[in-house]
């Protein structure tokens, strides 16, 4: 357990010091969301209608930003060899790195999301559900993204390939994440959507660490 925490602590420290983590993702998130009223015009009904989708799409893109460095920095400086030789199984190392990634990207996005949704005139009923949906959805983004990051770890400038690999896998999170908010704002029950988001998270937690670790082993060989 102390090894697990040591990796999380180090990765958070790295993300904060290199400036590539939380502040960058949140700034990107805010910029993308504010572009919509600027582009479409300040029509309340229209913005309210698209708010859930816009916030979710912007969050998916922002969560992708720092993914390409998730394992690559360690791969390039030889640290991945040492991580692979540590007593902690590679699968748990993946979970630790995803946890750190979520804490420095997903969590700040989750905090910023309701504020931005308010900017887009989202109905008050939707805000709490949006936060809840993002709490369930964003960890899945880090975990699913880890598979893509592990597959492209050996490729220089693999960021574009990573997006092409990972974005299609984000579709279910987008559909049910936006669906939950949609349901709440149209006085339907958001519960089924949230349950499916929870199920997606559990599935990602069960499968992504194994897939990522297998991909990393291929790249170490």
């Amino acid at each position, binding site marked *: *357990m*102390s*090894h697990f925490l040591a990796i999380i602590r*180090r990765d958070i420290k790295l993300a904060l010091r290199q400036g590539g983590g939380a502040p960058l993702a949140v700034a990107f998130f805010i910029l993308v969301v504010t572009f919509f009223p600027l582009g479409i015009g300040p029509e309340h009904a229209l913005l309210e209608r698209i708010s859930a989708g816009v916030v979710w799409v912007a969050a998916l893109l922002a969560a992708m930003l720092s993914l390409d460095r998730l394992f690559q920095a360690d791969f390039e400086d*030889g640290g991945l*060899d*040492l991580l692979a030789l*540590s*007593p902690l199984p590679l699968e748990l190392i993946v979970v630790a790195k995803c946890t750190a990634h979520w804490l420095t990207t997903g969590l700040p996005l989750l905090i910023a999301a309701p504020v931005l949704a308010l900017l887009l005139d989202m109905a008050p009923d939707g805000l709490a559900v949006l936060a809840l949906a993002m709490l369930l959805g964003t960890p899945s983004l880090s975990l699913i993204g880890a598979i893509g990051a592990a597959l492209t770890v050996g490729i220089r400038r693999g960021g574009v390939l990573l997006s092409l690999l990972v974005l299609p896998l984000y579709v279910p999170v987008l559909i049910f994440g936006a669906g939950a908010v949609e349901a709440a704002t149209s006085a339907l029950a958001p519960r089924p959507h949230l349950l499916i988001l929870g199920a997606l998270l559990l599935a990602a937690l069960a499968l992504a660490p194994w897939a990522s670790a297998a991909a990393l082993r291929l790249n170490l060989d």
Partner: protein
Amino acid sequence: MTAGGTFEGRGLDCVRGERVIFEDLDFSVEAGAALMVTGPNGSGKSSLLRLAAGLLRPAGGHLLWDGAEITGAIEVHRARLAFIGHLDALKPSLTVAENLSFWSALSTTHGRLDDAALDAALNRFGLAALANVAARLLSAGERRRAALARLAVSSATLWLLDEPTAALDAASTAALIELLEAHRAGGGLVVVASHVDLGLSGAAALDLGARPRPTP
């Protein structure tokens, strides 16, 4: 340190991509012994060390610890080895002390390292004054010393070193040799791949360049 054993490779074949690096290679290191692996570029020194660490799978042959396949209990094998690759595994934005304490915390089973042990390791390679300097500001030799300091806090039995003296000055090389000899005196095993003869007492030599080139 855990008690030493005998580490052997029997009939090892190594294939990288389509290329056969070496075939039918044998080596043996006993507790307290050292093995110097030499050979020209591309002869498979690094590959042999990665095989020995269990990072690569041999295309053929066996790696044995006290006669038992290392793949049978790979976690046990990982726990008894310390690996210094040709890359330094330092994070540019972390300080020398932070880098060292992270890797040593990760390699020990209890995951904790006291400050005195950390300071002693840094002192051994003359890094005390650089402890709070970010690794990105270090010279190549200083980076190498920061990587080698991991050995000084290691409780591993088997040390695998890839070109440890690259960019090292004479004083640091002497400090490394002293550390290696102390490790061997305590029953540890040392495998070094290097172009430079470290002059370890009674070290066995394995010259990969002197072996017949594998037929392509």
